[in-house]
């Protein structure tokens, strides 16, 4: 059963056709990578899917429910969550406060204007469990700005997972990390997220893509030019030419083999 279905989505900005008839579907628990060169429209697609910008036309369904014109907070409460390319944490707040805010975002919280945020036991337990899953529990009382870049990326993932999503959109979750750190983060993500969660992640790191993804979408100037398993994408000649150029480096050839 498809968790997230995207049908013929168009988005135009100042005469530029950023997204041109994007269609795909994600099954329960499926890990899908979205790759493409800079300017292909990857982040725009995530912004359209999360409701931050409205599509020009097309339809987006989450579990057979039309969410095309739903605002972002409603999509999140229905089970669609995302992370950002640049860490969007609340730097002056503590690590725990960040996660609690994310947990309370979709929770039905009683007396939410008078009771201290840390007094909600179930939310606190959930937040601590999430922090433990990415080895950040020991840093729960530290201000976010004191975390290293890698720790901030991990926390960014946790903020997306805190709402208990059924579909998770990750915009370059490993940006700025080494390959080793990327793979560790991917392993953490896969263990932290419920295995039923459908994940769509944007990445430039092909090692990560071919390690984690079950299916790959290749976006090029607003169009999905190829879609398939990692093996199929590796064998796709147009992907080699368009995504990597006519002549590509030894390193990238190795990745695609």
């Amino acid at each position, binding site marked *: 059963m498809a968790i997230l279905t995207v049908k013929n989505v168009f988005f135009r900005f100042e005469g530029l056709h950023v997204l041109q008839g994007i269609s795909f579907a994600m099954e329960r628990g499926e890990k899908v990578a979205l790759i493409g060169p800079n300017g292909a429209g990857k982040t725009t697609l995530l912004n359209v899917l999360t*409701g*931050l910008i409205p599509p020009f036309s097309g339809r987006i369904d989450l579990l057979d429910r039309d969410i095309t014109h739903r*605002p972002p907070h409603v999509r999140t409460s229905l089970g669609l969550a995302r992370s950002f390319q640049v860490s969007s944490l609340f730097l002056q707040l503590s690590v725990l406060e960040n996660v609690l*805010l994310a947990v309370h975002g979709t929770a039905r919280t009683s007396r939410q204007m008078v009771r*201290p*945020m840390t007094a909600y036991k179930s939310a606190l337990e959930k937040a601590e469990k999430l922090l433990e899953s990415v080895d950040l529990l020991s840093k729960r009382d530290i201000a976010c700005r004191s975390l290293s870049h890698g720790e901030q990326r991990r926390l960014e993932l946790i903020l997306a997972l805190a709402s208990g999503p059924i579909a998770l959109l990750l915009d370059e979750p490993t940006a700025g990390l080494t390959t080793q750190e990327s793979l560790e983060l991917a392993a953490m993500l896969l263990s932290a997220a419920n295995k039923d969660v459908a994940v769509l992640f944007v990445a430039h790191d092909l090692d990560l893509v071919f390690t984690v993804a079950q299916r790959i979408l290749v976006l090029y100037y607003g169009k999905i030019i190829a879609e398939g398993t990692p093996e199929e994408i590796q064998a796709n000649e147009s992907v080699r030419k368009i995504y990597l150029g006519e002549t590509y480096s030894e390193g990238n050839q190795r990745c695609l083999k």
Partner: protein
Amino acid sequence: MGSDHKAGGRGVESSKVDRRSKGRRLVYIAPVIAALLFLAIAPPFMDIAFISLATRILCFGLLAMSVDIAFGYTGMWTFGHAAIFGIAAYTTALFLIYTHIHSFWIITPIAILMAAVLSAIFAIIASRSSGLYFLLITFALGQLVYSVAIQWKSATHGEDGLWGIPYPQIGFPLLSVSYYYFTLIVVAVCGIVLYCFTKSPFGYSLVCIRENEVRARTMGYNTRFRKLIAFVISGVFAGLAGILYVYFNGGIVPDNIGMAASGMATIMVIIGGTGTLWGGFIGSAVVLVLQYYISLVAPQRWPIFLGAIFIFAVFFAGGGIFPRLANLWKRAVGYGNLDS
């Protein structure tokens, strides 16, 4: 077994953290309790001018705290709070002057309702914008209310204002000292309520909206609705400050609700420290005490000194006086930096 041991260890660690957190909180609010005790004990030993000044500080302190909820916590740069303060003050004065309803307990809820409605109107109109544009829209709406107060002479007496407001009857008569204590209690209760509000999930979500509204929306927060609610709550407390002020002042004039008054409330918040709640109160105390004493010496020079205080606060107490004082206090009692 190993895991049990580990879990037990975490439990001990967690309870230590909780105890430390409670200790920190007590240390944090100790100066506030000391200030309240001073304000409660001092009046019998002071002259009437001090009591009058202290009542004024309490009224404007509450207004500044309400501005801080909108401006400091939620990031809504408002320049219309004096109008909200004013509509509650004018409602009270109009009831007392033109009707036979003189009960404090009937007029006050109506005046607060008027403040809530006006702030909701301001927020609905201004909520499609943010930052400087929000400020300009609230400024324009505030000036609209100011114009009504000046132009509607048959009701408001124009620039002369409405005078002759007696101290309220709250079951027993209040005079200057007892009204001071009444104001102190009301402002203290409002301060505690606002403090609890800022520490609640809703209060934290406002900080989250101020820092990154896009992120807040994708975390499940209906940011426009929350901003509207925050502005209305802020307006209710601004209205309450207006009611306390009109009874204390014995009247209200348009100058109390115009651009200068909104600017003064914002300056109080900036001097005291934005997003700190108590900072607004400290800003109110600093500005009004200095205004009082400088006006005694050089009445015409006060605005120059106000400008100098503002520049001093911005340059030498980045973030405001309250965070500086709080950090000094924490260092003095060995709790390190406020930010840590």
